[in-house]
């Protein structure tokens, strides 16, 4: 079976869309998780902002792991049954250089979506997600 460049590109676009969607969905899910971590009022040092950051980075890392290990594998497995080893190796070599940037793009989507929602959709998500990026008037509470 012959695969044209067009087929490979279509595959890449499909993969890109899936990864982009995953980044988006993860961002929305973790926005709600971050929103669910309550504010606190206490004379002791507050930890809720730290928990929100931990949740945010947990989402980030889990997305990365999911994309690399499971999702890409799932797609490859679904193709393996429909093609011989030679074709598969051709496709894989073609995709190899694409998967990492696409995954990174997905991560960027996650961060960007989270950031945009935290900054501009406060009616929906409140002010908590923004504390992931800025607290005490400093970026990540540090800078």
């Amino acid at each position, binding site marked *: 079976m012959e695969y044209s460049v067009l087929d490979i590109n279509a595959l890449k676009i499909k993969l890109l869309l899936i990864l982009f969607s995953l980044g988006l969905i993860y961002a929305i899910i973790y926005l709600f998780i971050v929103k669910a971590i*309550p*504010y*606190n*009022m*206490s*004379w002791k040092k*507050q930890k809720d*902002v730290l928990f929100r950051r931990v949740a945010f980075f947990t989402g980030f890392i889990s997305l990365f792991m999911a994309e690399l290990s499971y999702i890409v594998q799932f797609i490859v497995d679904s193709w393996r049954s429909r093609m011989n080893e030679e074709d598969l190796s051709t496709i894989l070599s073609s995709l190899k250089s694409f998967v990492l940037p696409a995954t990174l793009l997905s991560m960027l989507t996650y961060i960007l979506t989270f950031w945009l929602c935290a900054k501009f959709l*406060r009616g929906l998500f*409140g*002010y908590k997600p*923004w*504390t992931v990026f*800025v*607290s*005490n*008037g400093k970026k990540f*509470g540090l800078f």
Partner: protein
Amino acid sequence: MAESNLGAQYFLVAAGGTGMRCLQSFINLSATGLFKDLKTVHILLMDTDEENKDKRNAENLLKSYEQVFKNAEGETFFNCKLKLYRFVPDYSKDSRRNFIIISQLERGDSDTNHKLANIFFEEGVQQFDLSHGYRAQTHLGSYLMYHAFVEEIRKSVQDNVYQANSELYKFIQAVSNANNTEARIFAFGSSFGGTGASSIPVIPRAISDCTKIVTGGNISGDKIYYGGVVLSSYFKFKPPSDSEKKKEKVIANSQFFTHNSASALNYYVNDFTISKTYKKLYLLGWPSKYNVDLDAYKEDELGKKKETEVKTITGGKSQENPGHVLELFSATAAFHFFSGIFTSKSELERISSTQFNYKSMGIDESGNLILDPEDVISNPGDIDKEVPMHEDFRKNLIAFYSFGKMVHAEYKGNMMGLLDDLRLYNSNYDVKPEILDSFTYFLNYFSLIPKGDEGNASYYPGWLTQLFITFKPNGDKDFLSIPKNFFDKKNAETWTLAYPELQRKNARNIFIERFKKINKNSSGDFKKFVEDIRSTLYSFKIDSKLATQED
């Protein structure tokens, strides 16, 4: 019909221990924003007892108010400027310790002088130590207070250095200047005690005469209007022992307060020196069976059993009585007199003889008194408004109180903790520590006063808590249509109880979420901080019980 009082200036005279506590109520209500329309009120604080704790408390409260006002003058809380003047006739020196010395009975024909004095005053009255006030001897007090006024102003007029230091002179000068437009002067004081009861009858005459001295007689006084409260007895304390009576000769005895009140009322109603000077008097009485037992209060709430057992308190550092609803009514009576919403200038001009005002409270099926917000202040003209005056008053009062308790419950009384948390959540307020100290003092005095070090979660009752405690008649029922647990003096955690929306486990989260929703990631100064906190608490609905009643 409501009229605006353009150009009118407002003057408050607080005399004696009860007057001081009425003043405290006035200051507290001012902090909650009730007197916004008045803009500035000149307050003359008048007492014969320099060390009186009620006076000290009123002074400290006013100083804190001034400090906060300077930095937080706003649309809601702290929106009326209160300007303090003090006048304390000095009876501490040996040369002015009693009537005989002050009136110089020994000079000239001593025998005749004494005979003349004996016509008006008993021997004991002439001799007792005045440094603790007039000890319910109003006939003597009125005489001395009037002359103390006039003497102070005369000295000020004659001596520029003395004048520069005389706060009474500045007060009188402000009244004189206000006569060009309109001056409304309101007097706080009891009708049954010493200094207040002595001062109220002579205040119009004394001020009027003093303005003439200050202006050299070039003042008509036709635009100066007087009002005042006539407070009848509402507390009692241990009668003096025989040895105390023997030692002091003249000593205040609360057993006679009811008789004093009755006599005073008779005088206020019938005497032309009152009816021709006061435009309005507000009669405020209290069922004697519900009188506050000061000794029991001090024992139960302040743990001062031993001290009160030793001797009867006639004044001085130990005279510190709890706040009472009648004092709250006095404060709103002053507002009623000042505000064009309730009292127009044309109305005052029409009054030829003192108009007596009073208010009544409801009772439940068991005959217990009920205090609803409308009983404290209400404007029939705004009943159709979305938030009528009484509800606005209640919401602000409760917001202020809740805030005070919240700082104790969540931050061990350290407001800086709240500011740190808000900063963490990107609401940054730049507040100087000394302003925060004044504000904290004020809030504590209003809600709960910590015993000793912060953090031990043990409190003396603050002003509003005192009002609740001393308002015994309704027993276990609600106060100001708010569940009684809200006023629990032992537990600051109850700060959420007035708000059904906050009566959940995650009340803190709900509060901050609301704060952020209303104020966004705001930054600013102390004024902004106060406004933002207020707007947040104000946005919560208060106890559904009242809403049901209104529906």
